[in-house]
């Protein structure tokens, strides 16, 4: 039903260019923070640090997708954000098992 939803939403976005710009700029700023967080993924030092950084990046991605969805007038991007919201913690859970005895308890 994507067409009907986005049509129904048109009035909401009619608040103007300004809000659209706000969403796009803030998405860019969130991305800038993402680069800062990525520093930790590169630096480490431990694997846990890296996973932590990627986990934070995942949350950030959810936000950026939502902002993009609002900024570009494309509500379907929220569905993609939902996938990350549901599955993002999987890697942290996996690594918590993996680092214990090299996966011996998997």
């Amino acid at each position: 039903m994507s067409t009907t939803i986005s049509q129904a939403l048109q009035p909401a976005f009619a608040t103007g260019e300004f809000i659209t710009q706000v969403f796009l700029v803030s998405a860019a700023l969130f991305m800038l923070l993402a680069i800062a967080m990525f520093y930790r993924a590169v630096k480490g030092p431990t694997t846990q640090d890296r996973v932590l950084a990627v986990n934070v990046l995942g949350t950030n991605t959810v936000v950026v997708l939502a902002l993009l969805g609002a900024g570009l007038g494309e509500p379907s991007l929220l569905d993609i954000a939902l996938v990350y919201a549901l599955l993002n913690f999987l890697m942290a859970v996996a690594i918590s098992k993996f680092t214990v005895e090299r996966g011996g308890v998997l």
Partner: protein
Amino acid sequence: MIETIRTVAIVGFILVGLFFTLVSATGVIRLPDVYSRAHTASQADTLGAGFALAGVALALGFSTTSFKTVLLLFFIFITNPTAAHAIARAADEEGIKPWTTDDDRTDADLYEEAMADE
């Protein structure tokens, strides 16, 4: 008038969200060890995401789509602390000692320790 208030509110929410995400990024970079970094990762970041998503929900108005942002928020609030816990637990299982104030180990030392453990 109402439109203006709404616009201001949206911008306000997003700015607050940006601020807390900035705190989170700063914390992730500045703090000394994995345990303290996990603090900001799970907390400041969750709140930042919460405010930003609230801004988006406000912009979308009362519709089924804006309900999805509430769902997003709900799942983030459940899964993020769990992820932080999982990471901290993994660090503890591997025997990484938490940093304390009387501890002058640097990142490089922690790295050496991590490599020696493996």
